[in-house]
């Protein structure tokens, strides 16, 4: 590229891409908003959900949004509890992604519950025996933690300092609380990221779910997806801006850690799946065969296992591919996709077989097809997340962390590779 000689690609890249991108997102959000209002007015009869499959696309959106937010707690814990201070720039991006992810989940939930006017009931009416109550409380509390963690980003922004220097300073000062917030975030996230899996794992009526390792599989896959989307975001923004925003050696360390995490997940998933084949629980075999050779087989083998876990784990663990930005971006994107499909398959595999509570009833396959209203709202929520991220990167110091050396004492400067060693 020579100076003063713009090619069409340059024009696209520098002047047209941003407005086209934002316009596309705005249109998707508006369509989603219209569909969402239709759901609030007309109710859940607009969905493809039935009494057999009462949870569908929205619950997948919900679980996935929370999973991709797991980078925030895990990377914050790495910085402030393990003391891997150098990872702070990545943790900052992860916190921003996490805040957006949780807000997406809250939007999806609002659509999904039959009585959105009563969304606050879980705060007031407590059933402490319910895993879902615990999830709701943790999500609410952790969302508050993320808001406080996010506040310094606004406080440090130049436009905020112009609007109200005092408020900006106050917000920026909240970074002092970062270590404490990291502890709170770790506790809350370990609880609800796991219990989202346990939410399925404790359901005796659905034999493919009913197992103790659901919570473990959920949290491990969430950490992988959360860190993967953070790395992906760092790299994509870096490529678009044409400069490195996050030190490559940091990316390398996190990428390697993600690779090992996915490998660990695959290991657990293998034994989980294998052992289930030996238990002839009514309904479990039927659900398993839906995944291995039935209607979910492409999702499972290709989406979840091969493209979603095995290949990206290899790409991130092999030094030669990990050195190549394109492969790291591909691998992290595949991992996010794989975890989204895993959430969807988990939900569907349990519900897709009817319950047999007497000998005469054999488990039968039922189907669920999301309606266009469900798709439109889902795309709307995703577009909202992308727009929030785009705006944040543009107007907030997401990638340019101020240095706060006074934040933490006794933290050793470690190289990223020390994390996985």
């Amino acid at each position, binding site marked *: 590229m020579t100076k003063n000689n713009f090619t069409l690609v340059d024009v696209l890249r520098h002047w047209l891409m941003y407005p086209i991108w934002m316009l596309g997102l705005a249109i998707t959000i508006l369509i989603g908003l219209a569909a969402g209002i239709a759901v609030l007015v007309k109710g859940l009869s607009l969905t493809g959900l039935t009494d057999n499959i009462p949870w569908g696309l929205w619950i997948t959106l919900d679980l996935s949004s929370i999973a991709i937010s797991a980078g925030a707690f895990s990377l914050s814990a790495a910085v402030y509890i393990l003391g891997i201070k150098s990872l702070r720039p990545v943790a900052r991006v992860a916190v921003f992604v996490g805040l957006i992810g949780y807000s997406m989940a809250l939007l999806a939930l609002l659509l999904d519950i039959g009585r959105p006017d009563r969304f606050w009931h879980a705060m007031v009416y407590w059933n402490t025996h319910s895993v879902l*109550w615990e999830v709701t409380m943790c999500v609410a509390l952790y969302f508050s933690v993320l808001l406080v963690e996010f506040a310094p980003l606004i406080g440090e922004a130049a436009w905020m300092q112009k609007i109200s220097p005092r408020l900006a300073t106050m917000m920026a000062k909240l970074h002092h609380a970062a270590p404490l917030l990291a502890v709170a975030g770790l506790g809350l996230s370990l609880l609800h990221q796991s219990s989202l899996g346990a939410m399925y794992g404790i359901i005796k009526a659905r034999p493919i779910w009913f197992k103790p390792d659901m919570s473990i599989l959920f949290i491990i896959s969430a950490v992988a997806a959360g860190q993967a989307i953070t790395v992906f975001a760092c790299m994509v923004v870096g490529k678009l801006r044409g400069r490195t925003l996050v030190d490559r050696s940091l990316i390398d360390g996190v990428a390697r850690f993600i690779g090992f995490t996915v490998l660990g997940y695959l290991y657990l998933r293998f034994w989980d799946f294998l052992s289930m084949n030996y238990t002839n629980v009514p309904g479990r075999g039927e659900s398993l065969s839906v995944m291995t050779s039935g209607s979910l087989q492409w999702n499972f083998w290709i989406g979840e296992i091969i493209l979603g876990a095995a290949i990206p784990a290899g790409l991130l663990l092999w030094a030669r591919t990990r050195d190549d930005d394109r492969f790291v971006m591909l691998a992290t994107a595949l991992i996010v996709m794989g975890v989204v499909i895993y959430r969807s398959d988990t939900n569907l595999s349990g519900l897709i077989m009817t*319950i047999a509570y007497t000998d005469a009833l054999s488990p039968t396959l039922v189907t669920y097809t999301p309606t266009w209203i469900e798709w439109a709202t889902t795309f709307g929520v995703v577009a909202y997340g992308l727009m929030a991220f785009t705006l944040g990167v543009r107007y907030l110091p997401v990638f340019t962390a101020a240095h706060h050396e006074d934040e933490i004492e006794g933290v050793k400067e470690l190289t990223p590779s020390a994390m996985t060693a």
Partner: protein
Amino acid sequence: MSTKINRRDFLRLAGTTGAALIVLGAKTAASAQASVTKESKHRWAMVIDQAKCTGCGDCTLACRASNDVAKGKEWNVVLQDKPVGGKPVYLPRPCMHCEHPPCAEVCPVGATYKRDDGIVMMDYNKCIGCRYCEVACPYGARVFNWEENTQPNDAVPQWGTPEIVRRPRGVPEKCSFCYQRIDRGLEQGLTPGVDRRATPACVVACPAGARIFGDLNDPESNVSKWLKANDHHRLRADLGTEPRVYYLAKRS
């Protein structure tokens, strides 16, 4: 206020928080166990004799009328069971009113709960419509109001008149053992299971006498006597939900 915290403090804080959570969790689990042994005055149960059931479906219609259930959203269904000796067998299926109801355990807001007398109830004003109960119920006893029920009830007045209000859109609903008839009957000094007005509508409506209802705490009640005199089983006993609906199998 000093906000400087060193690493040891974090670990200590994290440890304390973790320990507190474990204690809290253990206490919750312990209280769950304790609630099982709680004494109550009545323990309502239903016995359904599959040998007598002819599959006529009158119970479904009586239920629809008394509880103002929408057609096709039945609380009480009659299913085809495995034939015995070449003859059809039927399986009427209300809510099982489990001793350990999975639906009540999972409900985040406690909208589904078990009364002391064993009836698993729905508080339709508390429910947020998350449908976790529907996912958790092993017996498919719940139906969700995907849309508002605005249809006239075709079982009224032939099969009875509505005794409870219609449920709004966005909440699941299910059989309640006609708690309204039991509670009102007890107030009037009647005996549920004996006096028709205090007995669930499906039991009263059954022309074959295939259903009986009563108090397990009363050894002289019909249910206690029937269960003592006959072999009986409960649906999916392996799940440990301990339903309060007992079945007498069809004898060949």
